[in-house]
């Protein structure tokens, strides 16, 4: 979001924050407005699966003329990394993941992205969707002025466009517990190597 705000500071334009969730999310949405987003939309629904979240976002976004749709690279709770790809496909837009750098030149974006063991630089014409990785922008904290202004920025609540979901959560289980750590005498690295070779069988 910060990169989006920076781009509008540089080139003009607006930043809309969108969330699919219950009213208890409004506090976080107001924080985003306090950091500098222009307005916000909340789809009033309990999130179910990524498909459903994406479908609701895509349904709202499709007629609004956004140049760039930003998503995060992975969710901290369910480790989902697909939202941007779903939205992009639903809107028939290009999708660039793991962007660590984004520059706009008119309608052309030059994006740096993380790939396995390195980096890729690519360019694409807007509109497009991207997922943000560390390095895209410096974090910002809301200041007093931002917090005051956030109160009067529009936060529109809309009903969900769809309740269709394709993946159900059956259950959560704890991973098998690790037995306690085996401590090895620092003077005896031969023993550690032996254990790694014979017991753990990893070398």
């Amino acid at each position, binding site marked *: 979001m910060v990169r989006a705000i920076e781009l509008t500071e540089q080139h003009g334009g607006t930043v809309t924050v969108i969330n699919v969730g219950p009213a208890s999310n409004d506090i976080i949405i107001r924080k985003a407005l306090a950091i500098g987003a222009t307005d916000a939309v909340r789809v009033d629904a309990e999130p179910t699966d990524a498909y459903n979240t994406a479908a609701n976002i895509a349904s709202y976004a499709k007629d609004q003329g956004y140049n760039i749709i930003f998503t995060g690279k992975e969710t901290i709770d369910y480790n989902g990394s697909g939202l941007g790809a779903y939205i992009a496909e639903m809107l028939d837009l*290009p999708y660039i993941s793991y962007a660590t750098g984004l520059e706009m030149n008119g309608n052309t974006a030059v994006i740096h992205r993380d790939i396995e063991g390195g980096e890729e630089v690519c360019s694409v014409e807007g509109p497009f969707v991207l997922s943000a990785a560390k390095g895209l922008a410096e974090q910002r904290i809301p200041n007093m002025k931002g917090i005051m202004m956030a109160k009067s920025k529009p936060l529109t609540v809309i009903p969900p466009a769809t309740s269709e979901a394709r993946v159900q959560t059956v259950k959560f289980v*704890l991973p098998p517990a690790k037995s306690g750590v085996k401590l090895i005498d620092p003077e005896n690295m031969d023993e550690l190597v032996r254990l790694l070779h014979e017991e753990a069988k990893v070398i």
Partner: protein
Amino acid sequence: MSVLVYIESPKGIIKKQGLEAATYAAQLAKSMGTECVALLIGEVQDLSLPGKYGATKVLHYNGANARDFDAQVYTDIIAGGAEKSGASVVIMAHSSTGKSLLGRVAVRIGAGAVSGVTGLPDTSSGFIVTKSVFSGKAIAHYNITTDKKVLSLMGNSIQPVETGGEAKIEALDVPVRSPKVKVIERKTTEGVVPLPEAELVVSAGRGLKGPENWGIVEELADALGATTACSRPVADSGWRPHHEHVGQTGVAIRPNLYIALGISGAIQHLAGVNNSRTIVVINKDPEAPFFKAADYGVVGDVFEVVPKLTAAVKKLKHS
């Protein structure tokens, strides 16, 4: 009906994660009583490989539009291949490419999808897959309710198994759009196994005190044939390149062996590495939280312990 597996071939080479996906798809196809079809795009040096790992057919798309990775173009190809082979399940590796494709392919073919699955599906009632969530603190069981399914496979969740088979190789011809994404440059560190694919990792943190001390880390990594990694503060301070940063906001890895040197084990770091098979922690602070997540631990000064460990590893390798 078939199981389609998209196998990546960066610079023409099929890597271990690709063979894992092939084995997964082949075993799933066998349990569903159907065939496993492999789909490859662009340059491929050895098209016979998928057959050796359980595919009975290989579809190869090598058109000009697929020269560089463009997720929309690749989705056209994979969706086209899925239709041609009547695929009800599409498998791919959970890689940076897979993450860009999963949602697209799922929407395109009308499938439900789960990313980063860690085991074969339970098809006894529904189609239930497991996935690591809450940054490795729990395992979720998900049921996909649509007829068609798309899965991306977490690395190092299944070992590739050679079946000694042979696949029929066919050129794939499907309508494909012109790419909208232009790749300007690709920089990968050559000769090093990328972290997400590494089976052996030696990682170090602030306990190393400064970038000039990394020699002992690299020597241990060399002796083991391991890839090097680091904690977030180390990457943020510029001591190591940021693609070495493993953790919640960095790379999540699943190596067979993770050796952590001078890293305290903050929860955000653990989130990136707690799915490792074996964790070794070397730290001079016996209260370091990392010891609670470790299989083996050494309480000692890294500058004294690590060279001794490197020597012991070399002794093993030469015997």
